[in-house]
Every structure is written in structure tokens, then in C-alpha cells.
């Protein structure tokens, strides 16, 4: 038996991809959107998922890899269940983003780029989120949280941690 994991897109996904490909002059244009879909379905993009995307669009694996590694939103490794992405670019930095990062990493006991041992939280610093009026901005799993301060993050972390313990998300 091969050790390689077999993964598939659902029928519904394949239908969506078929429709998507038709919107472009060439199937290759659908690569970024399909990688977004794959990441949504499988959580991240390990090699066998990249192979699946390559096979689905009829592209060579190398082409898919080149794209996955170029774009920061594509993740090749598993992260925590909650990705806390703090913008520390100019507008956010001028409004306390660095202090916020320090507070979050200290209270979770990890460094930037790391995941808590229970697999719940990953903290990263990201570039300008295009929402500087709401500085500091934290993106949590693709959702924007604006004018975030230490107590907001404390409350968020407490809330999701306790609901996980209670067995619900």
C-alpha cells in the first residue's frame, strides 16, 4: 500500500471548477482560484493536494508549486485552528501594532510564526491589510477585526478556548 494520501475534490467542487475554467481564455488562469478552493477544502496545501490541483487543471506539478510558493496566502504547512494575523505595517505600527503583537505572543507563550502546542493559535505579522483607518487590524481566518486592542484579543482567545473545551466550536 502506498503511503501517499489520496484526496479528491467533491463532485460539487469539480462542477464549480468546470464552470470557473470556462470564464477564462485558458484553464491556467483558474489556478489561483482553484488553490483557494483546495485550501478551503483541505485546510492547507501539502504536496498531494498540490498534485490534485495540477491533475485537475491539467498542469505540471512544477507550475503549481511555483505559484504556491510565490503567494503568501497559500500555506504548505498546517497552522493553528485560529490564524491571528496582525498587520504591523505603517498605519498599524503608528497605532500600537507592535505592542499588540507582544501582548498576544506573551499571553499565548509563543513567538511570532509559531503555533500553540494545543494547535489552537498561530500568530503571524502581515503586511498592510488595506484597512488602515481601523488600525491596528488583525485578520483572523480571513475575517477583518479592526481597532483591536489587548483586551479585545484576550476576550477572543478566552472565548474560543472555552468553547473548544466545551466540545463545540
Amino acid at each position, binding site marked *: 500500500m502506498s503511503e501517499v494520501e489520496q484526496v479528491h475534490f467533491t463532485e460539487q467542487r469539480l462542477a464549480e471548477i468546470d464552470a470557473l475554467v470556462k470564464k477564462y481564455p485558458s484553464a491556467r488562469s483558474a489556478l*489561483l*482560484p482553484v488553490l483557494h478552493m483546495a485550501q478551503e477544502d483541505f485546510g492547507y496545501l501539502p504536496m498531494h493536494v498540490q498534485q490534485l490541483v495540477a491533475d485537475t487543471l491539467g498542469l505540471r506539478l512544477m507550475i503549481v508549486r511555483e505559484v504556491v510558493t*510565490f*503567494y503568501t*496566502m497559500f500555506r504548505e504547512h498546517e497552522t493553528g485552528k485560529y490564524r491571528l494575523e496582525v498587520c504591523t505595517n*505603517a498605519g498599524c505600527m503608528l497605532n500600537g501594532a507592535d505592542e499588540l503583537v507582544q501582548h498576544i505572543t506573551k499571553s499565548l507563550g509563543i513567538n511570532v510564526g509559531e503555533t500553540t502546542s494545543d494547535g489552537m493559535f498561530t500568530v503571524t505579522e502581515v*503586511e498592510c491589510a*488595506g484597512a*488602515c483607518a481601523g488600525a491596528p487590524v488583525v485578520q483572523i481566518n480571513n475575517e*477583518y477585526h479592526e481597532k483591536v486592542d489587548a483586551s479585545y484579543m484576550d476576550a477572543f482567545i478566552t472565548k474560543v478556548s472555552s468553547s473548544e473545551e466545551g466540545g463545540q466550536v
Partner: protein
Amino acid sequence: MISSDPKQVKAICFDRIHLEGQTGLEVARKNGAYKFLPTVLKDFDSDHIVDEVKKSGLRGRGGAGFPTGLKWSFVPRNTGKPTYLLCNADEGEPGTFKDRDIMRFDPHLLIEGMIMAGFALGVKDAYIYIRGEFLHEANVMDAAIDEAYAANLLGENILGTDFSMNLTVHRGAGAYICGEETALIESLEGRPGRPRFKPPFPAVEGFYRCPTVVNNVETLATVPAILEFGGDWHAEIGVPNNTGMKIFSVSGHVNKPGNYEVPMGTSLKVLIEEYCGGLQHGTVPKVIIPGGSSTPWLTAEHYDTPLTYDAMMKAGSMLGSGAIIVMDETADLIALTRRLAHFYAHESCGQCTPCREGTGWLERTMNRVEAGQGCKKDVEVLNDAAEHMAGRTICALADGASAPILSLLKHFPEIVEERLMENAE
């Protein structure tokens, strides 16, 4: 409602964004969306539209300020190839957050602008390239586009005319460089976003080597008003050569950060004091970055500069995307410059040596200077590296990377010196 008297115009792109339910087609139509579209599709022709946009004086709102009508007139006709329209909604320039508000609050305005532009250019397939992080905005746009298709505002034979156009939202995936128009095209072709050498310009050879127009969200959202009220009307707003309204995204040390749409030519000081509630500390800013992080810094002496492409150029900077980052006396300029150096090093696509190596040098040197481990020679290193990058690369990212460094050294040599002296002691 936009006033037909140019002197009375309060907003163009933001005219309807505060209205409740504006993202839905029914409400948007009640508020005037697509009202003038039938007239454009039935009574206007391509030349007339391009002429009106030329007359309007509209300049691209994405950063470069290139005249929109002129750009459209460069598209060759009858090449036998399709012409594509791409909306640049990548909005990655640090400090910029205006296109997001147009898309999430008034998506139909952008769609209407794209239908009109597409009609003028003979486009069959148009795309909105939106930064990947704007998932909510992409969903709002998608929902609005679905409604527009259902109402025959998109798709085959729009409103019973011969004109047919498709519109697709395409999400990027976190790469600032994809805001550069040729990198955007590469990305839309399913490749890493590495800018192409110009010429050929996209108008002649763009998406899949076909004629392609790339315009910013705000630029396209201005088109419906120009066609309804006329190019001359638009040219009366603002000041000559810098016409119309402009959205400024103001962030940093102001009391009321946000987007403000004002007539071109309004002064920086008026915008900050009257619209943004002034500074958080003190009365005079220490640094103003007027057009996004890639534009040279201004200091207190230029506080009165009018917000126009020309006046900003004269003051030694650029209007850019209209992203104004304000710093009061509390700002740590060395830390800020180090942070921006990191940004450019991270975002360089790496294909030009001066940019790839230069941005790395700048970041490492700034790290050293900030940590108090720098030496006198580092000032020279920074100056040399920054000067050798600018203007020697395929795209303007390298110029943007050198702007903060050169600005810091030019306006605040004493701050850098002081940090280096601390180390020497």
C-alpha cells in the same frame, strides 16, 4: 444625488456609499444605479465615450495618474484579437484603503463603470482582480454581479442591445507586486506575479498577449458620472490638469482616520484639520507621506500643499494613490523606516538584481541601525543602495523601496546620527 453644478459636487464615488441596502440591486437602482446606462448603450458610441473621458481630464487613481481617456485611445482596433478590461482592485500600497469601501458599499457603481468602459472598448470579458485578503469584498462583488446578470445588465445582449460582456471576480493571494499592472496580468494568467518589461504596454499586448486596459477601481467608478454629466462638467471640478474629486485614505496619527472624498486641490492641512479632526499630539505633523508608502515624505513646511498631482510633484513627492500617512512628533521614524524596508524586501519579486539585492541590503542595514549596532558607514551604505536601485529596474517597486530611506536621510539626518552616536558611546 450628484449635482449637475460642478461647484456643488460633494462626492462622486462615495455619493451613495452611506445609503442602507445599497449593495442590493433593487435599492441601488432606486438610488440611481444604471439609470444612465441605457442611454450610453443606445445613443453613445465608442469615440464619443473616449472623447468625453478625455475631456473630463480624469487621471488614473491607482497611483501613476495617467490620463484615462488617453490610455483608452491607445487600444488598437480591429486587431482580430479580443480586448480585455481588467479592474485593479489589488489595493496593496501601504496606507491605501479606498477601493475596499467602493466595493463593499456600492458594488454596482463599479459594475456600471466597467460596463460603460467595456462598451467603449469593445470588451467581451472583463475581470476584477481583487487582493486575496478582501474575501468579504469579493463576496459582495460576486453577489452584486449575480444580480446584475439576472437583470440582463451583464451577459448576452445587455438591456436588449448588441453589446455583450462577462464580468468575473478573481482573487489574488497575498502579493503586493500583483498591483503592478503587468504583474497583475501574469497573476491572472496563473503565474507568479513578476512584472513584464514595458513596452509593449498592456493596451497593445496584455492579457494573453491581447489588447488590455487596466484601470483602478476608483477610476472606473468615476466613469458613470462623467458620461451622465459630461466631460466638461468633470473638468470644472478641482483644478486644471488635476480635475475631479479624489478619495484620500488618511491614516496614522490623526483623530479621525478614514476615507474622505474631496475636490482635487484641497490643501493637505485642510484635509487633516477640518476632515480628520487634527493630529493626535501637537499641531504640526512631523512627517506626511502623501501618496502611499512608496512616495517621498513631506514635512511641516509643505503642510499647505494642495492635493494635486502637480503640486505634490513640485513639493518633491507624488499624489500616488491618495494614501496619506500622517505622523506626529511621537513617531519613531527609524522603526518606521525599518518596517517599510522589511515590507519592500518581502514583496520584491526578485527578478531584477538591483531590487532583490538592494531591498535586502536596506532591510539588513536598517535592522542594524535600529538595534543600535550601526556605524557611521551605514549612512553611506543606505544612500548608495537606495540611489542605485531607483530607476534601474523593470518596475517601480524599487523606487518605492528607496523613497522612505532617502526621505529619512534627507529630512532627519540628525535622528540617524544620534542613533549611531548612542552606539559609539
